[in-house]
């Protein structure tokens, strides 16, 4: 299949970017989206041009590195997948594909389609952990946990921190990400010890970094490759309220 690509090119963080058009030909419908990008880059290198910079790592949908806002949707026109799992059969022959970086004030563009997502790391550093004192290893089954809570915590922990929620949200809000990280601990007894400080500190950091507010449009849930539920946001709101009044 042949495609016309409109790709955001930006030399560096402070450079003025612009869309550049490329034509790619004879792309297999079985190729992944990133393989198509690799083919484009090989052609650009062969012509002596600079390849398009984009984030990627495991290419198995688990590392959270790949991004790309494709035709108005983070991770492209499919559900519950990352860009590396997107296949070219989701596009029509001759289609124009517009590829943009995540757009949010706390995610500045580094180059082309790569953005700096270290804002998420700062939020995690603010409280997204359980403090563990060194000592003997406790028995794994010493603390009984409800199966329902274990499942919900595991679902929340599936968040790979890719930032698609921020990219899709009309307000560039990070509430789905932060709520998943708050929930995965809040649901477990080991996480309850620091629960109040955790939610207060992580929300405070999220606000300071300049993410927007949640308007409950639920676009984040719709594009999340790990299908993180917006019920986590409600849980975080509850956790936050309880932390504030206690």
């Amino acid at each position, binding site marked *: 299949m042949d495609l016309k690509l409109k790709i955001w090119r930006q030399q560096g963080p402070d450079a003025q970017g612009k869309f550049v058009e490329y034509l790619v030909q004879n792309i297999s419908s079985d190729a992944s989206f990133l393989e198509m990008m690799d083919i484009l880059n090989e052609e650009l290198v062969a012509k002596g041009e600079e390849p398009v910079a984009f984030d990627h790592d495991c290419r198995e949908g688990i590392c959270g590195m790949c991004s790309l806002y494709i035709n108005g949707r983070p991770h492209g026109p499919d559900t519950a997948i990352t860009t590396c799992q997107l296949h070219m059969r989701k596009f029509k022959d001759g289609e124009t594909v517009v590829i943009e970086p995540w757009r949010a004030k706390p995610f500045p563009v580094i180059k082309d389609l790569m953005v700096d997502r270290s804002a998420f790391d700062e939020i995690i550093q603010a409280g997204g952990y359980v403090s563990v004192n060194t000592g003997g290893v406790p028995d794994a089954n010493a603390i009984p946990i409800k199966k329902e809570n274990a499942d919900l915590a595991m679902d929340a922990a599936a968040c790979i921190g890719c930032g698609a929620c921020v990219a899709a949200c009309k307000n560039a809000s990070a509430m789905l990400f932060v709520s998943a990280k708050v929930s995965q601990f809040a649901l477990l007894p080991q996480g309850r010890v620091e629960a109040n400080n955790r939610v207060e500190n992580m*929300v405070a950091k999220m606000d300071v970094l300049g993410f927007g507010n949640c308007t409950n449009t639920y676009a984040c849930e719709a594009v999340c490759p790990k299908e993180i539920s917006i019920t986590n*946001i409600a849980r975080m709101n509850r956790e936050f309220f309880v932390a504030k009044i206690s």
Partner: protein
Amino acid sequence: MSNTLSYSSITKKIWMSLFGLFLMTFLVVHLSINLLLLFDPSRELFNIAAHFMGTNPLIQIFQWVLFAGFGFHIILGVILQIQNWMARPKGYKVKGTSEDSVFSKYMIYTGMIIFVFLIIHLGNFFVLKMQGDVPEFHQPGAGEMEDMGLLVVNLFRNTGYVIFYVIMLLLMGFHLDHAFQSAFQSLGLTHNKYTPFIKGLGHFYSIVITAGYIIIPLIIYFR
């Protein structure tokens, strides 16, 4: 971290929800009084209710609570929206195609239109009443009171005003449709069993309230 109470995004959203739910209860009271105009074309019941609302000392105090509710809801909404715009200084070339609630995307715009309507609405009734420009209601045995019902009926016989009123109320309905379930989400009140009911109740509330308000000018106009 207690100093973040006044500033955090979630705190603002919680207050926004509480004021919003408070204003929704007010809409029910207001509608129930308006509907008296349909059940009693002589306007006596409506005027008695309006007289009570305008003179009862408790309601007079509560009136300022209501104004404060509107004020805080509007101010918070504007602050949140400005922060939201600042969070994405450069937008996308291709508009978002993610599935989301249609009305939720336009809350600030429907909210601003409702605010303008509120000002006009207060000018039409509240200001006239405060200035004492409302005609007296003369009905044997009804006592002395202002004929607020006449003001309403006269306005609802004006074609332009009825069209304007219906459009404004439809936009308010769109605002309410998202607002109801959104308030519960912001307050963290979600549950597998009850959230579908709350969402349904939100649609029901917004339709009944909007239809209730709209039907009054239409019936008076065509009566």
